């Protein structure tokens, strides 16, 4: 979704072309991210002509303030959807930054890893908005990601296994 997309594109801005092809996964209800992503990739293609990317949509796991029980159901549905997609993409590296959309994808990747099909490195970057507390996605993925990056020192103190690089967006 909007803010998350802007942040993640900033994170991508300094990455070399080794990080290619890039596969973007967004929520089906997201109206604004596709344009931002295409614009970013278009500019990138001007510098790196062999640049490649794909874009897929999955059902949104959870609406803001959705109830606990219905969130579990909708997340399970999103996992059912994202599992074949993740299997098809077989990513080496998953980069996510907090929208509910990332949880089913990461869970799918973890399952594929457990089954010995493909082991992806999961890197989670908590949003710049999160100064004192983690988002729900963050709280879940703190335990399941390989690297968990926070952008404010308070969070590094509270979550000692996290990585603090300062503000990176």
């Amino acid at each position, binding site marked *: 979704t*909007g803010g998350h997309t802007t942040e993640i594109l*900033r994170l*991508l801005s300094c990455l070399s072309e080794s990080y290619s092809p890039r596969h973007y996964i967004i929520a089906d209800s997201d109206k604004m991210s596709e344009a931002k992503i295409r614009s970013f990739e278009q500019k990138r293609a001007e510098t790196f002509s062999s640049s490649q990317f794909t874009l897929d949509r999955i059902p949104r796991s959870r609406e803001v303030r959705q109830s606990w029980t219905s969130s579990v159901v909708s997340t399970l549905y999103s996992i059912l959807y994202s599992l074949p997609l993740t299997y098809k993409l077989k990513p080496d590296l998953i980069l996510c930054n907090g929208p509910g959309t990332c949880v089913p994808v990461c869970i799918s990747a973890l399952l594929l890893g457990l089954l010995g099909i493909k082991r992806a*490195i999961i890197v989670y970057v908590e949003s710049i*908005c999160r100064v004192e*507390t983690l988002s729900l996605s963050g709280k879940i993925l703190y335990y399941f990601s390989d690297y968990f990056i926070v952008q404010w020192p308070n969070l590094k103190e509270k979550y000692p296994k996290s*990585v603090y*690089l300062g*503000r990176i*967006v």
Partner: protein
Amino acid sequence: FRFKDSLAQDLRGADLVISHAGAGSCLETLEQGKPLIVVINDKLMNNHQLELAKQLQSDGHVLCCSCSTLVETLQSMDLSTLKPFPPGQPEKFASFLDKVVEFQ
């Protein structure tokens, strides 16, 4: 106006920005180097937007107020106390990620 694709042009022409506490609005404004007053919606419970606004205020980058104290803030504000907001460094993330991937 209701929604625009980008506020960049309006921001460039502004001398002072008064905004809600949304991260995008705050950061975009600060990156353009404009003085910013953040109005906090005290009716939203468990508002995590507050975290960023409070941190930015305590770091001296913005002034915060509520709807009811806005007028008073505008009257008594001293914008020269606001400190410039250094940009984020995605290159640090890139270096970090390069090292991560190298070891796998």
